[in-house]
């Protein structure tokens, strides 16, 4: 009983952290542009597949593959903003959101053409065997997942609170008109937001692939759950996303363990719907953080 609970908790936190990173990706783009980027899940998928390619085909060491995959996906984010979003920037926010759905379909299709339909794997970051804690199994890769996500969160906090560009991104989110009036180049900030979100999504994809494998079709579900976490945590709220991601992952894992794994995927949707019905500003959001334009 206790062992099961511990095991479910570990599993839940592992996926929860991944959802949290997807949610943070949503938040970064949403904060600067009010766009909900439904291609966010595809960035996770691309990160995993790129890394699998760099290790499996190019035989890069896994750490190098991690950074290469993050950079490659960052370039995809760059291209998405530069060649798609920017061209349509005079369209309304809703049209832009629909465009992100189109991009997600495009990315998924390209991934299928490039990598096929089979799942790809990646070796774990360290080769030592699983650790036993009170009868529960802890894969070393799980520790990597926690470590890398913690690093991402710390780096982001640092970026947003210490660097000039990070603060400028917060300023754009706070008041886009004033941001333009003081001379913050909003277009560059939007580009930066897409690159950053894509890179964070890719990092999540690379660290989860050794545990859960990755195939072209995984982006949509990851994106949806990350979106659930983002809404639950209050859109635009980083720490909310972090907490909501973990809550969602845990709820899913307990549901799979104690009820039936068949309902697992419904948990995130139920949370999302409940949040939208009863508390659209999210658990940790303020009133002002409610979906701005719907």
């Amino acid at each position, binding site marked *: 009983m206790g062992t099961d609970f511990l095991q479910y908790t570990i599993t839940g936190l592992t996926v929860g952290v991944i959802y949290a990173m997807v949610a943070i990706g949503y938040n970064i783009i949403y904060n600067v542009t009010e766009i909900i980027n439904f291609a966010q899940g595809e960035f996770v998928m691309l990160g995993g597949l790129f890394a699998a390619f760099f290790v499996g085909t190019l035989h890069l060491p896994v750490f190098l593959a991690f950074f290469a995959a993050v950079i490659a996906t960052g370039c995809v984010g760059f291209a998405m903003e530069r060649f798609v979003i920017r061209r349509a920037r005079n369209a309304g926010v809703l049209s832009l959101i629909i465009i992100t759905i189109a991009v997600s379909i495009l990315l998924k299709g390209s991934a299928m053409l490039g990598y096929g339909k089979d799942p790809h794997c990646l070796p774990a970051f360290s080769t030592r065997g699983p650790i036993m804690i009170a009868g529960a199994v802890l894969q070393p890769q799980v520790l990597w997942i926690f470590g890398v996500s913690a690093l991402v969160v710390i780096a982001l906090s640092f970026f947003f609170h210490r660097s000039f560009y990070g603060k400028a991104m917060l300023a754009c989110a*706070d008041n886009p008109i004033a941001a*333009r009036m003081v*001379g913050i180049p909003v277009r560059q900030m939007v580009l930066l937001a897409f690159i950053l979100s894509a890179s964070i999504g890719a990092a999540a994809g690379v660290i989860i692939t050794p545990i859960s494998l990755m195939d072209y079709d995984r982006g949509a579900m990851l994106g949806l759950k990350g979106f659930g976490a983002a809404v639950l945590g209050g859109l635009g709220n980083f720490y909310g996303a972090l907490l909501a991601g973990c809550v969602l992952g845990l709820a899913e894992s307990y549901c799979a363990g104690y009820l039936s794994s068949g309902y697992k995927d419904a948990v995130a949707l139920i949370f999302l719907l409940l949040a939208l019905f009863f508390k659209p500003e999210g658990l940790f959001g303020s009133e002002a953080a409610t979906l701005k334009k719907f």
Partner: protein
Amino acid sequence: MLTVSDIHTYYGNIHALKGISLQVRSGEMVALIGANGAGKSTLVHTICGLIRPEKGTIMFQGAAIHGLLPESIVERGIAVVPEGRHVFSTLSVEVNLQMGGFVHRRNSSQIQEDIHWMFDIFPILRQRRLQLAGTLSGGEQQMLAISRALMSRPQLLILDEPSMGLAPLVIKEIFRIILDLKEKGKTILLIEQNARAALQIADRGYVLETGRVALEGESAMLLEHKDVQRAYLGQKGHLSTVPFAAKAQKRQRSCGG
């Protein structure tokens, strides 16, 4: 320094500015007065690059700036204190000021220096340094908005209705600050509905009515002008904020349906 010639600006089908021309010379303070909805803020947004004019030219220090991005216009030396203040309310006072200096981001010692200079001009902001801007009082937010604009070291400072929504005593303080800036040699374009207060400290003035310049001239002349007195200054010794022209306009609109 700034020459606006025959500017036409539209919002979709609405013809908001119908051929506006005005000039601000170096070292001068020019007042732009007009009723609510006359197009004052639209002109400000057109000058600072937030809206593209359909027609007309804007020259600043000898170069055309219409069609440039807002960030290039700030870099060239125009800073705006927007109507309604628009401070970054979820960021601290200090970060607000840093953002005001965004165009000088590569020179962090200058930004640090300027922040201290702002704190010397507005000591209250030093006390509130780490407070979120949204928690400041209206007057403090206006001081923050002004100092944020000054952080870019502008040649021309544009203030859009700095007295809006403030208590009379605070308005007095804000006007004292503006006059101070002028005496230090700043070139200022002051937009106001509070016509008397604005004309009293400005060198020259323009009166805007429904997207056109209705009148222009020396402040003293405008203060004495019959139409201005009737429409914008109200009874003697009484500060009017809702001029007759606006009331008449409203009446017309409701009749026109």
